[in-house]
């Protein structure tokens, strides 16, 4: 393994709790592993399992999902949905030969900046231990139908008069 390799972690943080906690960690000048690329989502319930797979397929070595504590979801049940999807996704990942430890779901409230620090450090350490994901050379993915223009979007100036 090259000495240059550093774990690449994509972190999806819910805007109401974990993202705010990461902000707090920053404002409080806490230092933690710089391996996470944070992406803000409105809710951990927004986490489509496709996001996780896409991240892994495109070069992430690990994915961290952060949401509000059970009972605290801004949208009432989004974090429970995240937990259900995550539970099932982990089984699929294991069968696909990806260590389940590469994907982690954590409840971190807005006031827990120190927990962002701790989890990010742990995660970086964990992925470092596991090493790079090294997926098989990915095949060129055909564009999804919509992006190929198969579903025509309304175009201004066209239509009514043909």
């Amino acid at each position: 393994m090259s000495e240059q390799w550093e774990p690449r972690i994509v972190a999806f943080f819910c805007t109401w709790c974990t993202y705010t906690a990461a902000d707090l960690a920053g404002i409080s000048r806490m230092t933690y592993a710089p391996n996470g690329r944070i992406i803000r989502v409105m809710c951990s319930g927004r986490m489509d399992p496709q996001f996780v797979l896409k991240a892994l397929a495109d070069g992430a070595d690990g994915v961290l999902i952060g949401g509000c504590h059970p009972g605290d979801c801004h949208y009432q049940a989004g974090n429970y949905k995240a937990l259900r999807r995550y539970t099932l996704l982990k089984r699929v990942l294991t069968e696909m030969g990806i260590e389940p430890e590469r994907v982690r779901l954590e409840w971190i409230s807005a006031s827990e900046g120190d927990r962002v620090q701790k989890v990010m450090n742990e995660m970086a350490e964990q992925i470092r231990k596991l090493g790079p994901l090294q997926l098989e050379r990915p095949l060129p993915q055909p564009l999804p139908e919509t992006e190929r223009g198969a579903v025509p979007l309304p175009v201004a100036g066209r239509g009514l008069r043909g």
Partner: protein
Amino acid sequence: MSKPKVGFYWCASCGGCEEAVVDLAEDILKVVEAVDIAFWPVALDFKRADVEAMKDGELAACFVNGAIRTSEQEEMAELLRKKSQLLIAFGSCSHLGGVPGLANLWDRQAIFEYVYKEAPSVTNPDGVVPQEQLKLGSNGYALTLPSFRDSVKTLDQTVEVDYYLPGCPPPVKLIANAVMAILEGKLPPKGTVLAPDKALCEECPRKPTKPDKLALKELKRPHQIQIDSEKCLLAQGLLCLGPATRSGCGAPCVSANMPCTGCLGPTSRVKDYGAKALSAIASLIDAEDEKEIAAIMEQIVDPVGTFYRYSLPASLLHRRVRNLTPGPFPKGKGRD
């Protein structure tokens, strides 16, 4: 004026797609009236050399079913691409990888080990596995076999594809519509899946009985319960993939008390069918406790085989990550 020429070809498939063409019944006469079938190995005696002798673009359309597994299939896909104006991926295997695509959970070596040596029905004391080349005698004459690839690919991962006819096999109605559209030149933009772009639930005869909010405490398999023939299958706890699957089939499985297994693949906005189907089912689970959720999920015996039954090669991960393959075929699990 000579009739437009069309071709049919099969790659890694079961032959069910060929059946589907025949299932056009009387309508096939209309097709034969309108076109000249210039290549169809399963039914007509044309050889590869006949295709090679064609001019580029001589076939107006070619329907290719089956996934791409061997070097020969790759060559045929390339040849047919060159000779056809329209190349149509016909059926789940060619569209998304299909059932043969589940072989992407193993690689060539593991498959050969199991299929030619370890399978209980095999007697192979010399451990013979297929070779790509065998030299015979002193004249150096060589017998060859196509190369067997590590991974199964979809047709569009091999060559450019113009349209897709989804389904295992494609529903007759969709085939007829597609053929008519081609003959009349009324084709949608390139890359379209020639089926409605809505979820199966939309056309499901059981839709009126689908509760507004599904909440499942238990997932059941069809043999475990007496199935109510009118009530929504998900509401009965059966793992029906209708919410994540494209419509167009007319829900024959659901009508016959069998949950949808997702052969028509995803709608146009979804990139990874299995992940989306997993997401749809997981969100219906009625539990908030970590252990309880895990226990309910355990009732899904084979998650990859369930959610990626027809689409593993087309998925974002494409195949099992090789460096972690836990040996050859897992014994027992899912096979007993």
